[in-house]
């Protein structure tokens, strides 16, 4: 398993901040602007990410649609997903997504790094 995290987030500033934090803490990071972009990146990847950090509300293909497509593709189905969302009651929103963890936006750096260390 690689040490690369795929960050799926439509907001460029949040995506960039997450990538920088992840890289500063010793992981690799790739960014996708929405679920469809993430599927493309996964299809082209020579090495699959150790975890996918997934936003829920995104244009084109949102988090739930991406998760559905990911679970149906045997190549990517086993990659653990950490859901990241602004919903206060995001446990309920993420319940059906079978995520290994759910983090509320903005996550604290410590909880983010702890989660990544668990899976990467």
């Amino acid at each position, binding site marked *: 398993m690689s040490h690369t995290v795929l960050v799926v987030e439509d907001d460029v500033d949040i995506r960039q901040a997450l990538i920088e934090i992840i890289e500063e803490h*010793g992981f690799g990071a790739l960014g996708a602007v929405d679920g469809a972009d993430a599927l493309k990146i996964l299809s082209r990847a020579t090495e699959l990410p150790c975890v996918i950090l997934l936003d829920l509300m995104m244009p084109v293909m949102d988090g739930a649609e991406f998760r559905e497509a990911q679970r149906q593709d045997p190549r990517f189905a086993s990659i653990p997903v950490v859901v990241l969302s602004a919903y206060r009651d995001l446990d309920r929103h993420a319940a059906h997504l079978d995520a290994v963890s759910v983090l509320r936006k903005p996550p604290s750096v410590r909880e983010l790094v702890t989660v990544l260390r668990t899976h990467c």
Partner: protein
Amino acid sequence: MEITARPESSETGSPRSLEERFRALVSSVKDYAIFMLDPTGRIETWNAGAERTKGYTADEIIGQHMSRFYTPEDLARGLPAKLLGQAVRDGRVEIEGWRVRKDGTRFWADVVITALLDDRGQLMGFAKVTRDLTERLHAQEEQLRLAHAEEAVRLRDEFLSIAAHELRTPLSALQLQLQGLLERPAGVDPRIRAKLERACRSGERLVTLVDALLDVSRITTGSFSLNPSRFDLAEAVQDVVERFREHAARAGSTVTVRSEPGLEGRWDRLRIEQVVTNLLTNALKYAAGTPVEIVLSGTEHDVTLTMSDEGPGIPESEKERVFLRFERAAPMRNFGGLGLGLYVARQIVEAHGGEISLAAGRPRGAHFVIRLPRAHLVGGTG
């Protein structure tokens, strides 16, 4: 109005008595002003409804011109003559407008003027029926004002929801950037660290304010729902108090919790923590420097949380208002905030089937009392 005479042979009597009875009927009608005009518009008859509507007695008004009931604006444009002319031309005319009573006050009238012609088609005069619709007009205006107010509230809620969502995203990015700097593995210069920590705290406050707006928009749109699980209320309260330790120290307050054992129930933990957070935030803001005490107790069916401070308290007259949206007991210029904390707290408590109130008759300080049923069939509040 249409009156049909019955045959002469019936018990209604002779045509003369029928006419008399018809006159009596017209003169006793109180809801309509019904009277006759001569061909020039001078008043010839007067009924009870006319006296009631316009304020003149028959003696005062008979022989006067009907233009007396018209406003100066309508007189200036020659409305009375125009209406009579239209009634002659078309047979009748109906119009709504302001008319003037004897005492000078105005009323909104529905007026029907019918031209009365003899067998040869010569004009004998006019029948005029006037109805006072002022109350109906006021009711319609009130309804319109209410509709406008409701629309304004809807637009405000929609704006709040959009604004809150739009603010949340850049705020998250800002918080991440600040935290990223603070938590750099390489470390941060201590002077910069202090500044970053202050910036982070401000960011957290902004997130809290925006979240309160989002909660309000969820409550008003009915998309606010609960996610219940079983837990001990004392543990949740203790968690919140622990998170507030630094905040309380800065406010110069101590927060103590006294609790009975076994306060388990089925509630939405995040939301219950939010209620405690909102009350504690208020206590540390409005009663800074005084001790805050939280007491938890339970019965078989429900648990009670009271939170007391020794601050200025809330006047009796304000004790219900503070639970409304955008309301506060303290003047806005003295304290920040949106005035949403207690509103959201009440919505959450009530969604759990519970109650939140301010205890009455305490000499000083605010004393909040929350009662929560241990189990409640929860759903959306909408």
